[in-house]
Protein backbone atom coordinates (compact mmCIF):
# COMPACT_ATOMS: atom_id res chain seq x y z
CA UNK A 1 0.00 0.00 0.00
CA UNK A 2 1.14 3.54 -0.73
CA UNK A 3 -0.24 6.87 0.42
CA UNK A 4 -0.95 9.20 -2.49
CA UNK A 5 -2.62 12.53 -2.93
CA UNK A 6 -4.01 14.21 -5.97
CA UNK A 7 -6.36 17.03 -6.85
CA UNK A 8 -9.50 16.01 -8.70
CA UNK A 9 -11.64 18.76 -10.19
CA UNK A 10 -10.10 21.20 -7.72
CA UNK A 11 -10.57 19.08 -4.57
CA UNK A 12 -7.65 17.45 -2.77
CA UNK A 13 -7.91 13.70 -2.14
CA UNK A 14 -5.58 11.62 -0.02
CA UNK A 15 -5.80 7.84 -0.09
CA UNK A 16 -3.93 4.71 0.91
CA UNK A 17 -3.98 2.58 -2.26
CA UNK A 18 -2.76 -0.74 -3.61
CA UNK A 19 0.18 -0.24 -5.94
CA UNK A 20 -1.23 -2.43 -8.71
CA UNK A 21 -4.52 -0.52 -8.99
CA UNK A 22 -5.09 1.61 -12.07
CA UNK A 23 -6.05 5.24 -11.72
CA UNK A 24 -9.34 4.40 -13.44
CA UNK A 25 -10.25 1.82 -10.81
CA UNK A 26 -9.28 4.08 -7.93
CA UNK A 27 -11.32 6.95 -9.38
CA UNK A 28 -14.37 4.76 -9.84
CA UNK A 29 -14.23 2.34 -6.93
CA UNK A 30 -12.35 4.16 -4.19
CA UNK A 31 -13.11 7.82 -4.82
CA UNK A 32 -16.60 7.10 -6.13
CA UNK A 33 -16.33 9.18 -9.29
CA UNK A 34 -18.03 6.76 -11.68
CA UNK A 35 -18.45 9.22 -14.55
CA UNK A 36 -15.23 7.97 -16.12
CA UNK A 37 -15.94 4.65 -17.83
CA UNK A 38 -13.99 1.49 -18.50
CA UNK A 39 -14.40 0.21 -22.05
CA UNK A 40 -11.58 -1.87 -23.51
CA UNK A 41 -9.08 -1.50 -20.67
CA UNK A 42 -6.28 -1.44 -23.25
CA UNK A 43 -6.00 2.18 -24.34
CA UNK A 44 -7.98 1.83 -27.52
CA UNK A 45 -11.54 3.03 -26.91
CA UNK A 46 -10.97 6.27 -24.97
CA UNK A 47 -13.98 5.82 -22.64
CA UNK A 48 -11.64 6.37 -19.67
CA UNK A 49 -10.15 9.62 -20.99
CA UNK A 50 -9.36 12.10 -18.22
CA UNK A 51 -7.10 15.13 -18.14
CA UNK A 52 -4.00 14.73 -15.98
CA UNK A 53 -1.64 17.68 -15.52
CA UNK A 54 -3.27 19.40 -18.47
CA UNK A 55 -3.17 16.58 -21.03
CA UNK A 56 -5.75 13.94 -21.98
CA UNK A 57 -4.75 10.37 -21.15
CA UNK A 58 -6.31 6.93 -20.86
CA UNK A 59 -6.85 6.36 -17.12
CA UNK A 60 -6.95 2.58 -17.69
CA UNK A 61 -3.23 2.58 -18.52
CA UNK A 62 -1.98 4.66 -15.60
CA UNK A 63 -1.34 3.26 -12.15
CA UNK A 64 -2.94 5.30 -9.40
CA UNK A 65 0.49 5.57 -7.72
CA UNK A 66 1.83 7.23 -10.88
CA UNK A 67 -0.77 9.96 -10.41
CA UNK A 68 0.59 10.96 -6.99
CA UNK A 69 0.86 14.75 -6.87
CA UNK A 70 -1.00 15.36 -10.12
CA UNK A 71 -3.99 17.52 -10.99
CA UNK A 72 -6.80 15.51 -12.50
CA UNK A 73 -9.93 16.63 -14.32
CA UNK A 74 -12.81 14.23 -14.89
CA UNK A 75 -16.26 14.63 -16.43
CA UNK A 76 -17.73 15.40 -12.99
CA UNK A 77 -15.82 18.70 -13.05
CA UNK A 78 -17.65 19.82 -16.19
CA UNK A 79 -20.85 20.63 -14.35
CA UNK A 80 -19.43 21.27 -10.89
CA UNK A 81 -21.27 24.58 -10.65
CA UNK A 82 -24.56 22.73 -11.07
CA UNK A 83 -24.88 23.85 -14.68
CA UNK A 84 -23.88 21.94 -17.79
CA UNK A 85 -20.82 23.18 -19.68
CA UNK A 86 -21.40 24.74 -23.12
CA UNK A 87 -20.20 21.51 -24.80
CA UNK A 88 -22.49 19.39 -22.61
CA UNK A 89 -25.42 21.65 -23.53
CA UNK A 90 -24.55 21.32 -27.21
CA UNK A 91 -24.39 17.51 -26.82
CA UNK A 92 -27.89 17.69 -25.38
CA UNK A 93 -29.24 19.91 -28.20
CA UNK A 94 -27.72 17.74 -30.95
CA UNK A 95 -28.59 14.33 -29.51
CA UNK A 96 -24.86 13.59 -29.35
CA UNK A 97 -25.53 11.07 -26.58
CA UNK A 98 -27.13 7.73 -27.30
CA UNK A 99 -26.12 5.02 -24.86
CA UNK A 100 -23.82 7.55 -23.18
CA UNK A 101 -20.94 5.22 -22.46
CA UNK A 102 -18.41 7.10 -24.61
CA UNK A 103 -19.70 10.54 -23.56
CA UNK A 104 -17.53 11.24 -20.47
CA UNK A 105 -14.36 10.37 -22.41
CA UNK A 106 -15.54 12.32 -25.47
CA UNK A 107 -16.22 15.38 -23.31
CA UNK A 108 -12.74 15.32 -21.78
CA UNK A 109 -11.07 14.79 -25.16
CA UNK A 110 -13.08 17.69 -26.58
CA UNK A 111 -12.20 19.86 -23.58
CA UNK A 112 -8.52 19.38 -24.41
CA UNK A 113 -9.17 19.86 -28.14
CA UNK A 114 -10.84 23.23 -27.50
CA UNK A 115 -7.91 24.34 -25.37
CA UNK A 116 -5.63 23.66 -28.34
CA UNK A 117 -8.05 24.84 -31.04
CA UNK A 118 -10.77 27.19 -29.70
CA UNK A 119 -12.60 27.02 -33.05
CA UNK A 120 -11.68 23.64 -34.49
CA UNK A 121 -12.49 22.82 -38.10
CA UNK A 122 -14.54 19.75 -38.90
CA UNK A 123 -11.29 17.93 -39.81
CA UNK A 124 -9.65 18.97 -36.54
CA UNK A 125 -12.64 17.63 -34.61
CA UNK A 126 -12.53 14.30 -36.48
CA UNK A 127 -8.77 14.06 -35.90
CA UNK A 128 -9.23 15.20 -32.30
CA UNK A 129 -11.64 12.41 -31.36
CA UNK A 130 -9.59 9.69 -33.12
CA UNK A 131 -8.94 8.09 -29.74
CA UNK A 132 -12.59 7.83 -28.69
CA UNK A 133 -14.92 5.11 -29.87
CA UNK A 134 -18.66 5.68 -30.16
CA UNK A 135 -20.25 2.29 -30.80
CA UNK A 136 -23.67 3.84 -31.36
CA UNK A 137 -21.85 5.48 -34.32
CA UNK A 138 -23.19 8.89 -33.37
CA UNK A 139 -20.06 10.72 -34.53
CA UNK A 140 -21.95 13.12 -36.81
CA UNK A 141 -24.00 14.50 -33.92
CA UNK A 142 -20.88 14.85 -31.78
CA UNK A 143 -19.08 16.79 -34.53
CA UNK A 144 -22.10 19.08 -34.94
CA UNK A 145 -22.32 19.63 -31.18
CA UNK A 146 -18.68 20.76 -31.09
CA UNK A 147 -19.21 23.07 -34.08
CA UNK A 148 -22.28 24.52 -32.35
CA UNK A 149 -20.58 24.93 -28.96
CA UNK A 150 -17.81 26.89 -30.66
CA UNK A 151 -20.24 29.18 -32.51
CA UNK A 152 -19.64 27.68 -35.92
CA UNK A 153 -23.20 26.59 -36.72
CA UNK A 154 -24.95 29.87 -37.43
CA UNK A 155 -27.63 28.46 -39.71
CA UNK A 156 -30.41 26.59 -37.95
CA UNK A 157 -30.89 24.48 -41.07
CA UNK A 158 -27.51 22.88 -40.50
CA UNK A 159 -28.71 21.21 -37.31
CA UNK A 160 -29.89 18.03 -38.95
CA UNK A 161 -30.41 15.91 -35.88
CA UNK A 162 -32.04 18.30 -33.40
Amino acid at each position, binding site marked *: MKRVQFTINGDLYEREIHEHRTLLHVLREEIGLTGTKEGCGAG*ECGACTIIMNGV*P*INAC*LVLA*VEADGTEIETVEGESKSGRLSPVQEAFDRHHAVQCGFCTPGMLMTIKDLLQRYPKPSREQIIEGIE*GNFCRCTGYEQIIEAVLDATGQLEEKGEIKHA
Partner: protein
Amino acid sequence: MTHEFSYHAPGSLDEALALLSEYGEKAAVLSGGTDLLVNIRAGLSRPEYVIDIKKIPELKALSYDPEDGLHIGACVTVNELLEYEPIAESFAVLYAAGAELATHQLRHRATPVGNIVTASPCGDMSSPLLCLEAEVVIVSQNSTRRVALREFITGVKTTVLAPTEIVKEIFVPPTYAGAQAGYQKLKRIKGHDLGVVAVALVKHNGSFRIGINSAAPTPLLLPDFAAGTPVEEVQKAAAKAISPIDDVRCTKEYRAFMVGVYIERLMKEVGA
Protein backbone atom coordinates in the same frame (compact mmCIF):
# COMPACT_ATOMS: atom_id res chain seq x y z
CA MET B 1 -7.89 -7.51 -12.68
CA THR B 2 -4.19 -6.98 -12.31
CA HIS B 3 -2.01 -9.10 -10.05
CA GLU B 4 -0.32 -7.46 -7.08
CA PHE B 5 3.18 -6.06 -7.44
CA SER B 6 5.27 -3.52 -5.64
CA TYR B 7 5.95 -0.17 -7.24
CA HIS B 8 9.20 1.76 -7.09
CA ALA B 9 9.86 5.20 -8.52
CA PRO B 10 13.58 5.86 -8.10
CA GLY B 11 14.76 9.44 -8.52
CA SER B 12 18.11 8.57 -10.08
CA LEU B 13 19.41 6.23 -12.76
CA ASP B 14 21.86 4.67 -10.27
CA GLU B 15 19.02 3.78 -7.94
CA ALA B 16 16.96 2.31 -10.79
CA LEU B 17 19.88 0.22 -12.01
CA ALA B 18 20.56 -1.04 -8.48
CA LEU B 19 16.93 -2.17 -8.20
CA LEU B 20 17.11 -3.91 -11.58
CA SER B 21 20.38 -5.56 -10.65
CA GLU B 22 18.73 -6.88 -7.47
CA TYR B 23 15.39 -7.99 -8.94
CA GLY B 24 16.45 -9.01 -12.48
CA GLU B 25 13.71 -10.88 -14.32
CA LYS B 26 11.21 -10.30 -11.50
CA ALA B 27 11.17 -6.60 -12.39
CA ALA B 28 9.63 -4.66 -15.25
CA VAL B 29 10.61 -1.13 -16.26
CA LEU B 30 7.66 1.26 -16.56
CA SER B 31 7.77 4.43 -18.62
CA GLY B 32 4.62 5.31 -20.59
CA GLY B 33 2.98 2.01 -19.67
CA THR B 34 0.96 1.80 -22.88
CA ASP B 35 2.41 -1.65 -23.62
CA LEU B 36 3.45 -2.84 -20.14
CA LEU B 37 0.12 -2.13 -18.44
CA VAL B 38 -1.82 -3.69 -21.32
CA ASN B 39 0.31 -6.84 -20.90
CA ILE B 40 0.00 -6.84 -17.11
CA ARG B 41 -3.76 -6.39 -17.30
CA ALA B 42 -3.98 -9.23 -19.83
CA GLY B 43 -1.87 -11.48 -17.58
CA LEU B 44 0.88 -11.71 -20.23
CA SER B 45 3.42 -10.05 -17.98
CA ARG B 46 3.57 -10.76 -14.25
CA PRO B 47 6.38 -8.71 -12.70
CA GLU B 48 6.75 -8.70 -8.91
CA TYR B 49 8.36 -5.28 -9.05
CA VAL B 50 7.43 -2.41 -11.32
CA ILE B 51 10.16 0.20 -11.62
CA ASP B 52 8.83 3.53 -12.84
CA ILE B 53 11.68 5.51 -14.43
CA LYS B 54 9.72 8.73 -15.07
CA LYS B 55 11.12 10.47 -11.99
CA ILE B 56 14.69 10.24 -13.32
CA PRO B 57 15.40 13.72 -14.75
CA GLU B 58 18.12 12.71 -17.24
CA LEU B 59 15.76 10.28 -19.00
CA LYS B 60 13.59 13.25 -20.01
CA ALA B 61 16.44 14.70 -22.10
CA LEU B 62 15.60 15.64 -25.69
CA SER B 63 18.21 17.54 -27.67
CA TYR B 64 19.40 18.13 -31.20
CA ASP B 65 22.60 19.64 -32.44
CA PRO B 66 23.50 19.61 -36.15
CA GLU B 67 27.04 18.45 -35.25
CA ASP B 68 26.17 15.98 -32.52
CA GLY B 69 22.80 14.57 -33.62
CA LEU B 70 19.51 13.85 -31.91
CA HIS B 71 19.13 12.36 -28.43
CA ILE B 72 15.72 11.01 -27.40
CA GLY B 73 15.63 10.12 -23.70
CA ALA B 74 13.75 7.05 -22.48
CA CYS B 75 10.90 9.03 -20.94
CA VAL B 76 10.29 11.50 -23.78
CA THR B 77 6.73 10.93 -24.99
CA VAL B 78 5.74 10.72 -28.64
CA ASN B 79 3.83 14.01 -28.36
CA GLU B 80 6.87 15.69 -26.80
CA LEU B 81 8.94 14.45 -29.73
CA LEU B 82 6.38 15.78 -32.24
CA GLU B 83 6.29 19.17 -30.50
CA TYR B 84 10.08 19.49 -30.53
CA GLU B 85 10.77 21.81 -33.47
CA PRO B 86 13.88 20.10 -34.92
CA ILE B 87 11.80 16.97 -35.55
CA ALA B 88 9.41 18.57 -38.04
CA GLU B 89 12.29 20.63 -39.47
CA SER B 90 15.01 18.00 -39.81
CA PHE B 91 13.57 14.51 -39.29
CA ALA B 92 10.49 14.43 -41.50
CA VAL B 93 10.22 10.64 -41.41
CA LEU B 94 10.07 10.58 -37.60
CA TYR B 95 7.50 13.35 -37.57
CA ALA B 96 5.27 11.61 -40.09
CA ALA B 97 5.50 8.24 -38.33
CA GLY B 98 5.03 9.73 -34.84
CA ALA B 99 1.80 11.40 -35.94
CA GLU B 100 0.54 7.99 -37.15
CA LEU B 101 1.29 6.25 -33.85
CA ALA B 102 -1.91 5.30 -31.99
CA THR B 103 -4.09 8.16 -30.70
CA HIS B 104 -3.59 11.61 -29.18
CA GLN B 105 -4.20 10.28 -25.65
CA LEU B 106 -1.80 7.36 -26.11
CA ARG B 107 0.89 9.64 -27.58
CA HIS B 108 0.86 11.65 -24.35
CA ARG B 109 2.09 8.53 -22.49
CA ALA B 110 3.75 6.31 -25.11
CA THR B 111 7.47 6.86 -25.74
CA PRO B 112 9.65 6.28 -28.83
CA VAL B 113 12.08 4.31 -26.63
CA GLY B 114 9.24 2.12 -25.35
CA ASN B 115 8.10 1.59 -28.92
CA ILE B 116 11.46 0.09 -29.95
CA VAL B 117 11.92 -1.83 -26.66
CA THR B 118 8.52 -3.49 -27.26
CA ALA B 119 10.01 -4.43 -30.66
CA SER B 120 6.72 -5.19 -32.31
CA PRO B 121 7.01 -5.83 -36.08
CA CYS B 122 4.56 -2.91 -36.50
CA GLY B 123 6.25 -0.39 -34.16
CA ASP B 124 5.83 2.95 -35.93
CA MET B 125 9.16 4.30 -34.68
CA SER B 126 11.18 1.30 -35.84
CA SER B 127 11.45 1.53 -39.62
CA PRO B 128 11.98 5.32 -39.63
CA LEU B 129 14.70 4.98 -36.98
CA LEU B 130 16.28 2.13 -38.97
CA CYS B 131 16.40 4.44 -42.01
CA LEU B 132 18.10 7.10 -39.86
CA GLU B 133 20.68 4.58 -38.54
CA ALA B 134 19.66 5.12 -34.95
CA GLU B 135 21.63 3.65 -32.08
CA VAL B 136 20.28 2.45 -28.76
CA VAL B 137 22.19 3.52 -25.65
CA ILE B 138 21.90 0.80 -23.02
CA VAL B 139 23.02 1.15 -19.42
CA SER B 140 23.40 -1.29 -16.55
CA GLN B 141 25.05 -0.97 -13.17
CA ASN B 142 28.51 -1.68 -14.53
CA SER B 143 28.44 -0.66 -18.15
CA THR B 144 27.15 1.45 -20.99
CA ARG B 145 26.88 0.02 -24.48
CA ARG B 146 25.63 1.34 -27.80
CA VAL B 147 23.87 -1.02 -30.15
CA ALA B 148 22.73 -0.23 -33.68
CA LEU B 149 18.93 -0.44 -33.82
CA ARG B 150 19.16 -3.05 -36.61
CA GLU B 151 20.99 -5.32 -34.14
CA PHE B 152 18.88 -4.33 -31.13
CA ILE B 153 15.63 -5.92 -32.35
CA THR B 154 16.19 -9.65 -32.77
CA GLY B 155 12.70 -11.01 -33.48
CA VAL B 156 9.01 -10.58 -32.77
CA LYS B 157 9.01 -8.58 -29.51
CA THR B 158 12.55 -9.65 -28.62
CA THR B 159 15.66 -7.52 -28.22
CA VAL B 160 19.23 -7.83 -26.96
CA LEU B 161 18.25 -5.99 -23.74
CA ALA B 162 19.15 -7.93 -20.57
CA PRO B 163 16.83 -7.87 -17.52
CA THR B 164 19.35 -5.76 -15.61
CA GLU B 165 19.62 -3.12 -18.36
CA ILE B 166 17.71 0.04 -19.21
CA VAL B 167 17.62 1.83 -22.56
CA LYS B 168 18.74 5.31 -21.63
CA GLU B 169 18.17 6.94 -24.99
CA ILE B 170 17.92 6.61 -28.73
CA PHE B 171 20.70 8.41 -30.56
CA VAL B 172 20.14 9.53 -34.15
CA PRO B 173 23.29 10.68 -35.96
CA PRO B 174 23.00 13.93 -37.94
CA THR B 175 23.75 12.07 -41.21
CA TYR B 176 20.16 12.19 -42.47
CA ALA B 177 19.08 15.49 -40.90
CA GLY B 178 17.07 17.52 -43.38
CA ALA B 179 16.56 14.53 -45.69
CA GLN B 180 13.32 14.49 -47.65
CA ALA B 181 11.22 11.62 -46.45
CA GLY B 182 7.79 10.06 -46.21
CA TYR B 183 5.87 7.45 -44.24
CA GLN B 184 2.79 5.57 -45.38
CA LYS B 185 0.82 3.29 -43.10
CA LEU B 186 -2.12 1.05 -43.84
CA LYS B 187 -4.57 0.49 -41.01
CA ARG B 188 -8.15 -0.64 -40.86
CA ILE B 189 -9.15 2.45 -38.89
CA LYS B 190 -7.28 5.52 -37.74
CA GLY B 191 -5.83 5.22 -34.28
CA HIS B 192 -7.44 2.24 -32.62
CA ASP B 193 -5.69 -0.61 -34.36
CA LEU B 194 -2.25 -2.00 -35.08
CA GLY B 195 -0.78 -1.10 -38.45
CA VAL B 196 -1.39 -3.59 -41.26
CA VAL B 197 1.77 -2.57 -43.09
CA ALA B 198 3.91 0.58 -43.24
CA VAL B 199 6.72 1.89 -45.43
CA ALA B 200 9.25 4.65 -44.70
CA LEU B 201 11.41 6.31 -47.35
CA VAL B 202 14.39 8.61 -46.71
CA LYS B 203 16.22 10.32 -49.60
CA HIS B 204 19.84 11.28 -49.13
CA ASN B 205 22.79 12.34 -51.34
CA GLY B 206 21.83 10.73 -54.63
CA SER B 207 20.35 7.64 -53.06
CA PHE B 208 17.34 6.60 -51.05
CA ARG B 209 16.50 3.95 -48.49
CA ILE B 210 13.35 2.16 -47.51
CA GLY B 211 12.19 0.75 -44.19
CA ILE B 212 9.23 -1.62 -43.88
CA ASN B 213 7.02 -2.49 -40.88
CA SER B 214 4.66 -5.44 -40.34
CA ALA B 215 5.98 -7.50 -43.24
CA ALA B 216 8.58 -9.67 -41.45
CA PRO B 217 9.36 -10.81 -37.87
CA THR B 218 11.31 -7.56 -37.40
CA PRO B 219 11.06 -4.14 -39.02
CA LEU B 220 13.28 -4.14 -42.12
CA LEU B 221 15.73 -1.79 -43.77
CA LEU B 222 16.46 -2.46 -47.45
CA PRO B 223 19.93 -1.79 -48.91
CA ASP B 224 20.24 1.72 -50.43
CA PHE B 225 18.98 2.39 -53.96
CA ALA B 226 20.59 4.87 -56.34
CA ALA B 227 18.36 7.84 -57.23
CA GLY B 228 16.46 7.08 -60.40
CA THR B 229 16.19 3.32 -59.76
CA PRO B 230 12.97 2.19 -61.51
CA VAL B 231 9.98 1.60 -59.23
CA GLU B 232 9.67 -2.02 -60.39
CA GLU B 233 13.23 -2.77 -59.37
CA VAL B 234 12.68 -1.37 -55.87
CA GLN B 235 9.40 -3.26 -55.55
CA LYS B 236 11.16 -6.47 -56.58
CA ALA B 237 13.90 -5.98 -53.98
CA ALA B 238 11.26 -5.34 -51.32
CA ALA B 239 9.24 -8.41 -52.31
CA LYS B 240 12.39 -10.52 -51.88
CA ALA B 241 13.17 -9.07 -48.44
CA ILE B 242 9.75 -9.39 -46.82
CA SER B 243 8.11 -12.49 -45.34
CA PRO B 244 4.58 -11.36 -44.47
CA ILE B 245 2.02 -13.52 -42.66
CA ASP B 246 -1.74 -13.99 -42.79
CA ASP B 247 -3.49 -12.72 -39.69
CA VAL B 248 -6.77 -11.30 -38.46
CA ARG B 249 -6.04 -7.98 -40.18
CA CYS B 250 -5.31 -9.21 -43.71
CA THR B 251 -3.65 -11.84 -45.89
CA LYS B 252 0.06 -12.04 -46.63
CA GLU B 253 -0.68 -11.41 -50.30
CA TYR B 254 -2.43 -8.13 -49.48
CA ARG B 255 0.45 -7.06 -47.23
CA ALA B 256 2.97 -7.78 -50.00
CA PHE B 257 0.81 -5.95 -52.54
CA MET B 258 0.47 -2.86 -50.33
CA VAL B 259 4.22 -2.70 -49.70
CA GLY B 260 4.58 -2.32 -53.47
CA VAL B 261 1.83 0.30 -53.66
CA TYR B 262 3.39 2.39 -50.87
CA ILE B 263 6.86 2.16 -52.42
CA GLU B 264 5.48 3.57 -55.67
CA ARG B 265 3.53 6.34 -53.87
CA LEU B 266 6.46 7.34 -51.67
CA MET B 267 8.93 7.38 -54.58
CA LYS B 268 6.56 9.73 -56.40
CA GLU B 269 5.84 11.85 -53.30
CA VAL B 270 9.47 12.25 -52.23
CA GLY B 271 10.86 12.31 -55.77
CA ALA B 272 13.27 9.40 -55.32
